[in-house]
């Protein structure tokens, strides 16, 4: 029987919703236990939140000053020590946190990793995208080995946090940690808007916006809709918005109920990031733009006229 260990992602004392998405994936594996490991300087709050997620068997916490920031070189040896001989699967979210950390854990355990699970076909068989999502492969991992994997956020809903109160167990991990890696700073885009990766609605702007000043009309529409703001790589590269707003193959893979693409052509690398959106709306002046191939509703015209109109109309 499978025993699954999920590594909690958290920042500033808040559990990231990616953890509850991993739980949903883990439930598909039909395990006898789904435990969540919280590594933090002070794991109490995050651990308590993790214990509420329906489906979680037990929460393990490891408090250590070195865990104040999510440095893979610090966390990986602790995770490997917890996982060794005790778990069949180690799951992490396919966010920059999990992508950075999971392969380090896998290599310490001497096993392969499955990146970006999008469906579970069995305890050791999974579907995952390759070639920017242009092909979906089924991969089988050896059943006699531990498996480390990352879970594609957009493929899994967050497990509910309603009725559960899983026991919380504090671990004392006696693992030597390196001093070769030091955290300096994290510069976060300050925003009261919803988080791009969790938002039900997203409005994204592309190169066509032309300047960061012009991006204001995207923010105005997003505010009206209670939406998060995203962007194409071209818009990020041009400096209109910060890099953490990038949607796509090398940015964030998202699955909002509503995605509004404004002045975005729809390059394959961008579409990879929005395939799982519920409804896609595209506003573009070019009738031939590939974004219209995937849009549920397409509107042809000048965004500088249409976006303010739309903002007024939804108000």
């Amino acid at each position, binding site marked *: 029987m499978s025993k699954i260990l999920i590594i909690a992602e958290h920042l500033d004392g808040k559990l990231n919703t990616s953890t509850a998405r991993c739980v949903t994936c883990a439930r598909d594996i039909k395990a006898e236990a789904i435990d969540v490991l919280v590594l933090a300087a002070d794991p109490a709050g995050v651990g308590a939140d993790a214990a509420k997620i329906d489906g979680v068997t037990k929460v393990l916490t490891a408090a250590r000053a070195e865990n104040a920031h999510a440095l893979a*070189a610090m966390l990986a040896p602790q995770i490997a020590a917890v996982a060794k001989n005790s778990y069949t699967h180690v799951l992490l979210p396919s966010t*920059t946190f999990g992508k950075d950390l999971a392969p380090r854990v896998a290599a310490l355990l001497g096993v*392969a990793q499955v990146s970006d699970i999008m469906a579970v076909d069995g305890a050791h068989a999974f579907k995952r995208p390759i070639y920017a999502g242009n092909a979906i492969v089924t*991969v089988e991992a*050896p059943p006699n*080995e531990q498996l480390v994997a990352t879970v594609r956020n957009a493929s899994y809903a967050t497990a509910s946090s309603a009725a559960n109160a899983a026991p919380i167990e504090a671990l004392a991990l006696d693992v030597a940690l390196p001093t*070769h890696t030091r955290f300096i700073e994290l510069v976060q885009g300050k925003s009261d808007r919803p988080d791009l990766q969790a938002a039900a609605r997203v409005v994204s702007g592309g190169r066509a916006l032309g300047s960061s000043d012009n991006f204001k009309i995207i923010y105005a529409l997003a505010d009206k809709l209670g939406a998060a703001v995203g962007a194409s790589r071209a818009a990020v590269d041009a400096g209109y918005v910060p890099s953490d707003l990038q949607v796509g193959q090398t940015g964030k893979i998202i699955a909002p109920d509503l995605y509004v693409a404004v002045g975005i052509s729809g390059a*394959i690398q961008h579409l990879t990031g929005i395939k799982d959106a519920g409804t896609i709306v595209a506003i573009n002046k070019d009738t031939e733009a590939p974004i219209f191939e995937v849009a549920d509703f397409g*509107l042809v015209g000048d965004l500088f006229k249409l976006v303010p109109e739309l903002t007024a109309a939804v108000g």
Partner: protein
Amino acid sequence: MKILVGYKRVVDYNVRIQVKPDGSGVITDGVKLSANPFDDIALEEALRLREKGVATEVIVATIGPADAQAHIRNGLAMGANRAIHVVTTDAIQPLTAARALLKLVEKEQPGIVLLGKQAIDDDCNQTGQMLAALWDRPQATFASKIEINGNAAKVTREVDAGLETIEVDLPAVITADLRLNEPRFIKLPDIMKAKSKPIETLQLADLGVESGDHLKTTRYAPPAKRQKGVMVKDVAELVSALKSKGLL
């Protein structure tokens, strides 16, 4: 200081990959092959560090089939001093790639190993992190800025929350993100010069690497297609369409 750069050949990023009708693989016959875009960025960064006097030698390493020669020459034309070609006919998985790269690291003793953050064929995003773990050295993934100060590197990383800066002691593994730099174009005289640069050829089998190809791919399928939607004529029609779907 030497810099070792991972330089993988992949299907060009402009090619829209098709799955074979029988689900046994993707169609790669006759498609354009290029350097993994992230590896071009990694190489460019290594060259800039050499131009700044931080590095003395840049070595590109390719693990791939014997016919990858032209690809390797490209890396040399871009400016690498020399190349190591680890020959294998198999498309190896990241754990094997990391184990093979570790052998090269042990032989060359580089101060920095610069890889791409992900190969755009398998989209694994694993090799650099695995190599760092096996080597027991620091990793700085998704780098958008690298500053070398003596025996340490200050690296700004593109993470979901924003930009994180960490400091790592060298030697270390750094993986390149898209905004680290813009790779230079190769000029004709450089292609001529590259012809005389050394390529060391090794057989993967001779490196003594234990296989980490633990995953079996049993089926390839095209992605689920989104239904093509409808064009609306104006904002009013869009708003009512969204309202009728319960989205507004």
